């Protein structure tokens, strides 16, 4: 450990970290798909369900949003086997991420759905559409586009929280970097590379989200005029 930054070592660990990055991206994509689905279910339960369901979903969403993800991960990891559901660490992690961000997405969906004017529902009733058709073909297509940027921000947030899965030994980037560091006693290179990886991906996705936002604004502007 004489040099501050060891290029040879950095090159050596890069392919290993690249492999781990694939796991990180997998967890991100599957976790977010789950979050999108759960978020919609939560939002619908909270907006349209019977009273008891409304209160129940609200309580769950608020609870999930105001407690730490790390403890939720531990909770699922240690508690689910007690109920005879044995899953591997990665699946547990995906489930925890999906649940946590599902609670956040629920609020986004709710905002999107509430912004669709009531007249759209009334018009659909007048056209004799079933509630399901109305929802699927009239309401949802209007509710989703404006909330895409907000959902995108949560995708990036979820991506940045995947390192928490290292706490239950999922071999994603952070865990791999820690193992590499503990083998060589050189933590600088792996951890810095992981940081750079996150930085690059976040900046790229922030740029993409901004572009989508601009394009959506333009399109909606055209419709209105």
């Amino acid at each position, binding site marked *: *450990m004489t040099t*501050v930054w060891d290029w040879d070592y950095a090159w050596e660990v890069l392919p290993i970290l690249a492999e781990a990055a694939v796991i990180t991206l997998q967890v991100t994509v599957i976790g977010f798909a789950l979050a999108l689905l759960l978020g919609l279910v939560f939002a619908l339960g909270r907006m349209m369900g019977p009273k008891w369901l409304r209160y129940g979903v609200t309580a769950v969403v*608020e*609870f999930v949003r*105001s*407690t*730490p*993800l*790390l*403890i*939720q991960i*531990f*909770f699922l990891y*240690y*508690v689910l086997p*007690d109920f005879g559901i044995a899953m591997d660490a990665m699946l547990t992690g995906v489930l925890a991420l999906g649940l946590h961000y599902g609670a956040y997405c629920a609020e986004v969906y709710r905002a999107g759905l509430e912004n669709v004017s009531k007249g759209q529902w009334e018009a659909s009733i007048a056209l004799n559409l079933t509630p399901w058709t109305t929802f699927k073909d009239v309401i949802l297509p209007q509710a989703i586009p404006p909330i895409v940027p907000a959902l995108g921000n949560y995708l990036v947030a979820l991506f*940045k*929280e*995947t*390192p*928490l899965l*290292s*706490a239950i030994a999922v071999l994603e980037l*952070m865990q791999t*970097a*820690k193992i590499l*560091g503990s083998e060589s006693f050189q*933590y*600088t290179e792996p*951890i*810095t590379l*992981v*940081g750079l990886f*996150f*930085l690059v991906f*976040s*900046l790229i996705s*922030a740029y993409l989200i901004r572009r989508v936002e601009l394009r959506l604004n333009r399109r909606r502007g055209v419709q209105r005029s």
Partner: protein
Amino acid sequence: MNNKAAVILVASVVSFTLGLVAATFSDMSEFVPELLRGLLITLQVTAGGAVVAVTAALIAALGKMYGPTPVRWLAMTYIEAFRGTSALVQLFWLFYVLPHFGITLEPMTVGIVALGLNIGAYGAEVVRGAIGSVPKGQWEAGVALNMSRMQLLRDVILPQAFVAMIPPWGNLFIELLKATALVSLITLSDLAFKAQQINQNTLRTVEIFTVVLLAYLAISLVITMGMRALERRAAKGLRRGRVA
């Protein structure tokens, strides 16, 4: 006003207390002091992190908005670097990499500094937005009164921006509280660490994690209520001075 929040607060505090009481009188009583010690660490990191976050956010936002070019670049680099990477990566970086450069910090300091800087980077954008939301006429009036830029910022703009900042800061403080669970991974024995430790000793997973999750919920509800009270007071002060 927020009857619902009050109900939730009471409910969570009651359930948390019930959990503690149940734990006290069951065979788990020996772990209660442990949990409380963990709670203290969590509160310390949250409070320390909040101070660091607000300070860093103010400096970074003002630097980015009004600083000379090098300061502006520095502020932007700080904001992008801390917003663009994971809190856990930042924590590990300060914990494992800094000693390599000859700087060894206590885990407690690492936790407070890393999480504070992380939340501060998000807070900088909040501060910037709030300052931007103050009507332009306020600046012009200040100039007309021959105030210096510093005076204007300190006595006219920031007090008004402060009100707009409070709700988003409430959310950030809750994010901070939740992020403090990460310090358990750098050997600091906070609430999350104690929960895991006790769980390994007793295997009473459901009870322990439920009590701990409720504790976090209770703290975050207290933060929410506190920030709302602060907002009401600040808004009152603002109205009093306003014409029309």
